[in-house]
C-alpha cells in the first residue's frame, strides 16, 4: 500500500505539472508533445494501480494516436496561440475553484483509497466474478464436472439452494461467505454450500466455465457481461470515422496526384521502418488475439495495427499507402468490424438465445461458445479500430486544394 502511494504521488505531481504546462504554453506543437508526455505518465500511474489493460489503451490511444492526430491537424493551422490580454481568466478560475471545492467536499465520505471493504468490492462484482471457476486448468476444452454435479441444473434454476436465506433483503450471508472465508475478489473453487445468488430462468457461468478460457477478467467483462456497451463503443469509433470522411474528404479527381512528402531520402528512417513494420503488424495481431489471456484486446491491438500503417504512410508517403490499402477497402473494413460484432450478437438470436448470449453459439459446450463469441467480437473490434484510426489520420493529413 505504501509503495503504491509514494510512487503514485510522485507520478501525479509530474502529471499535474505537465497539465499546467499544456494549458499555459503558447506553442501548439509543444502542447501536442506535452499531451503525449501526459498520456504516457498517466499510463504509468495506471500501471502503478495494476490496471494493465487501461494503461495499455491509454499509452496506445492517448500517447500514440492522439498525438499523431493533433500533429496531423497542426500542419494546417497557425503555429502559436494568440497572446492573451490577461494572464488569468477570472470567471473561469472562480468557476473551477467552486466546482473543485464541491468535488472535494464530495470526497470526504468516500471509502479510503484501496479500502477492501468499499461497496464496489463486495456488492455485485464478486458474485459475478467468482462463480464456478473451479474447473480451470491450463488446458482449453471441456472440463469434466466433479462427482454428482448436474450441469443442466444450472440452466433452469429453481431457487432451492442450501445456505441462502429466503428473504432477499437478508444479505449478511454474502458478506460472511465471500469476504470472511475466501478474501475479496478471489476466484473460488466451487463448493456445494456456496452457490451464488441468482434468479430463476437464467444460466450462470456454464459449468465448463468460460473463465477458464478467458483468464483476463477485464476481457470477459468487456466482451461478455458488458459486451453490449463495447458494441456501442465500437459504433462510436465507426461514427467518428464516417464523420471525418463526411467533413473532410474531397472528391478525388482523375489524374490528380496526391501530394505527399515522403521521407525516403532519410536512409535510417527508411531502413528501420521497413524492418519494423512486419513486427509491428504482427504484434498488433498478437495483442488482439492474446487479449483473452493477458492484458490486451481489440482496442489496443487495433491501435497498434493502425500505427504500423501510419508509420508506413509517414515515411513512404500516402500514395504508397493508398496503393497498399485503397480508401475503398478501408471504408468497407470499418463497417465490417462493427458488423462482425453485431452479427455475432444477431447469430446468437438466430441460435435461440438472447442478443449477445454467446453460449447459444455452441449448445453442447456453452463455455466454448462463450469463448468463441468473445474471440469473434474482439477481432471485430480490432478491425474497426485499426481501419478507423487509419481513416482519421488520412483525412486529417490531406492537403488543401484550392
Amino acid at each position: 500500500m505504501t509503495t503504491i502511494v509514494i510512487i503514485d504521488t510522485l507520478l501525479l505531481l509530474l502529471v499535474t505539472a505537465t497539465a499546467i504546462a499544456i494549458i499555459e504554453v503558447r506553442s501548439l506543437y509543444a502542447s501536442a508533445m506535452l499531451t503525449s508526455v501526459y498520456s504516457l505518465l498517466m499510463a504509468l500511474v495506471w500501471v502503478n494501480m495494476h490496471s494493465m489493460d487501461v494503461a495499455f489503451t491509454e499509452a496506445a490511444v492517448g500517447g500514440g494516436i492522439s498525438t499523431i492526430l493533433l500533429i496531423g491537424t497542426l500542419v494546417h493551422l497557425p503555429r502559436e496561440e494568440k497572446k492573451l490580454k490577461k494572464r488569468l481568466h477570472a470567471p473561469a478560475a472562480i468557476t473551477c475553484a467552486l466546482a473543485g471545492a464541491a468535488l472535494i467536499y464530495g470526497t470526504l465520505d468516500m471509502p479510503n483509497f484501496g479500502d477492501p471493504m468499499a461497496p464496489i468490492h463486495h456488492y455485485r462484482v464478486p458474485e459475478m466474478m467468482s462463480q464456478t471457476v473451479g474447473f480451470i486448468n491450463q488446458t482449453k476444452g471441456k472440463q469434466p464436472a466433479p462427482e454428482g454435479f448436474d450441469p443442466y441444473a444450472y440452466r433452469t434454476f429453481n431457487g432451492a439452494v442450501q445456505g441462502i436465506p429466503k428473504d432477499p433483503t437478508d444479505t449478511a450471508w454474502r458478506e460472511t461467505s465471500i469476504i470472511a472465508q475466501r478474501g475479496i475478489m478471489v476466484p473460488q473453487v466451487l463448493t456445494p454450500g456456496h452457490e451464488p445468488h441468482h434468479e430463476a430462468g437464467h444460466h450462470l457461468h456454464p459449468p465448463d466455465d468460460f473463465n477458464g478460457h478467458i483468464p483476463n477478467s477485464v476481457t470477459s467483462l468487456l466482451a461478455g457481461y458488458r459486451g453490449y456497451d463495447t458494441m456501442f463503443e465500437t459504433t462510436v469509433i465507426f461514427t467518428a470515422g464516417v464523420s471525418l470522411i463526411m467533413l473532410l474528404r474531397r472528391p478525388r479527381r482523375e489524374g490528380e496526384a496526391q501530394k505527399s512528402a515522403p521521407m525516403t531520402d532519410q536512409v535510417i528512417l527508411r531502413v528501420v521502418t521497413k524492418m519494423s513494420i512486419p513486427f509491428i503488424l504482427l504484434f498488433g495481431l498478437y495483442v488482439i488475439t492474446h487479449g483473452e489471456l493477458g492484458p490486451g484486446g481489440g482496442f489496443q491491438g487495433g491501435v497498434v495495427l493502425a500505427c504500423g500503417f501510419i508509420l508506413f504512410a509517414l515515411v513512404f508517403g500516402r500514395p504508397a499507402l493508398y496503393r497498399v490499402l485503397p480508401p475503398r477497402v478501408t471504408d468497407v473494413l470499418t463497417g465490417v468490424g462493427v458488423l462482425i460484432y453485431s452479427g455475432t450478437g444477431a447469430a446468437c438470436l438466430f441460435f435461440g438465445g438472447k442478443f449477445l448470449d454467446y453460449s447459444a453459439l455452441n449448445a453442447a459446450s456453452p463455455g466454448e461458445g462463450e469463448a468463441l463469441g468473445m474471440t469473434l467480437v474482439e477481432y471485430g473490434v480490432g478491425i474497426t479500430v485499426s481501419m478507423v484510426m487509419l481513416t482519421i489520420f488520412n483525412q486529417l493529413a490531406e492537403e488543401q486544394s484550392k
Partner: protein
Amino acid sequence: MFDVQANLPVLIVTIPLIGGILTILTGRGWKPWAWATLLTGTIFYLTLRLIVAVWASKTGIVSYELGNWPRQWGIEYRVDALNSFILCIVAGVGFLTTIYAKCSVEKEVPADRHNFFYAVWVLALCGLLGITITGDAFNVYVLLEISSLTVYALVAMGKDTHRGALTASLRYLILGSVGASFILLGIGYLMMITGTLNMQDMHDRLHSVPGILQSKTVLVAFAFLVVGLGIKMAMFPLHMWLPRAYTYAPSAVSALLSATATKVGVYMTFRFLFTIFGVGFSFMTMPTTWVLALCASAGIIVTGVTALRQTNLKRMLAYSSVGQLGYIILGFSLANVNGVAGSVAHILNHALMKGGMFMALGAVFYRMNRVDLRSVRGLGRRMPFTMAAFVLGGLGLVGFPLTAGFISKWYLVQGCLDRPHMWPLAGVVLVGSLLAVVYTWRVVEAAYFQEPDPGAPPVTEAPTLMLVPMWILIGASVYFGIDATGTSKITVTAAKALLGGS
C-alpha cells in the same frame, strides 16, 4: 428464425445499428434515402408493438436482459409506460423526418455525401432510442456519446449553406462533452457508493442501506448529474449551444433535433432524478424544485423576449424551443402528478408542433433559399399549406384550445396550483404564452398581410414529399388536442409510476 416479440427491445436498437452501417454501401442517388426510410419505418412499427406489449403485460414493465446475464450483473433493458411512450415519439418523428429529408437534404448536402449522411442519421436515431430504452447507468453514457457524436456531425453538415454551422457544431461539441463528462462523474460517484450500475439496483441500494442518502458523495453526485443533464436538455443558463445549432443545421436535422434530442435529455433526467434517486431525495431533501423552477421560469421569459427580436425564423424557433423546454422542466420540478403528467404530455406535443414548424421552415428554405421575415412575405398565398402548418404549430405553442399545446399547459397550470406556494409559476406559464402569441403573430402578419418583394422569384408550394410529413405532425398535434384521452391515460400512468418510486 427468431422470436420477434420476445426480442423487441433489442431489435429496436440493433436494427438501426446494423442498417445504419450498411447505409454506406447504398451508393448515390435516392438509394440511401430509401434505405433509411425503410429502416426508420421498421423501427417505428416495432416501437408501436412494444408499447402494446408494455400495456398488455401484467406488471406494466417489459424487461430484457442482454446476453442472458441476470440484471444485477449484466445490462438490462427496462421498458415501462414512460419509456415506451417516448420511444414511439422518437421513432415516429424519426420516420417522418426521414421521409421529409429527401428533398431538403438534396438541396443542402452535397450529393456524394448522402450515403454517409444517412448512415450518421440512422445511427443518431439508434443512439436516441438506445438511451430511452436502457436500464443501466453506464450504457446510458455510452449511448449518449453515440447520439451526441452523430448530432455534432449532422449539425456540421450545414456548412455548405452557412459557415456558422461549423462553429455551432464545435461549440455544441465542447459544451456537450463537458456535460457528458459531468454525467460520467456523477455515475462514478454513484457506483462507488452503491457498488452497482443497474438503475433499479442503484435505487434499491440507495434506499436500503442506512445513511447512504446523507453521504456527501451522493449529494455531490446529484449536483453534478443535474448540471450535466441540464446541459444536455438545454436548461436555461446552460442552453447556449442550442440556438446556433438549430439555426445553422440542415433543415431536416433541425426538425429531428428539436423533436428528439433534448426530449431524450429530459427522459434521462426523469430516470436519474425519479427512478434512481427517488422523489423523496430529489425533491424533498434537495432544493431541486426551487432551482429547477427558477431556471425554467427565467428561461421561459428570457428566451421568449429574445425570440421576439429575431429576424431569422429558425433562430426564433430555436429560442422558442428553449422556452418550451422550460415548460417541461417546470412541470416535473413540481413533483406532483399533474405537473409530471403535463411535462410528459408536453414532450409529445412539443415534438409534434416544433417538428412540424421546423419542417415548414425547411420547405420555405427549399423554395426561397432564405428563412428570414423578409422572405416569408406574402407566402400565405403562394405556399398556403406550408404557412398554414406553421400557423397551426404556432397556435399550439401558444396553447390555443383545441391544439395539443393547450392540453399540456392545462396540466402544467393545474400542477402549479396544486402546490401551495407555486401559483406565481402559473403566471409565468401565461406570460410565456403571451410572448409566443407575439412572435407567432409577426410571422402571420408577414405571411398573410404583406406583399412579397417585387424582386422575389415566383415560387410554388413545397413538394408533396415535404408537405405530407409536415401535415401528419401538425395534424397529429391538433388531433391530440381534440382527443386527449389516450395521451392523458399514458402520461398520468407514467407520472404515477415515476412518483411512486419513493
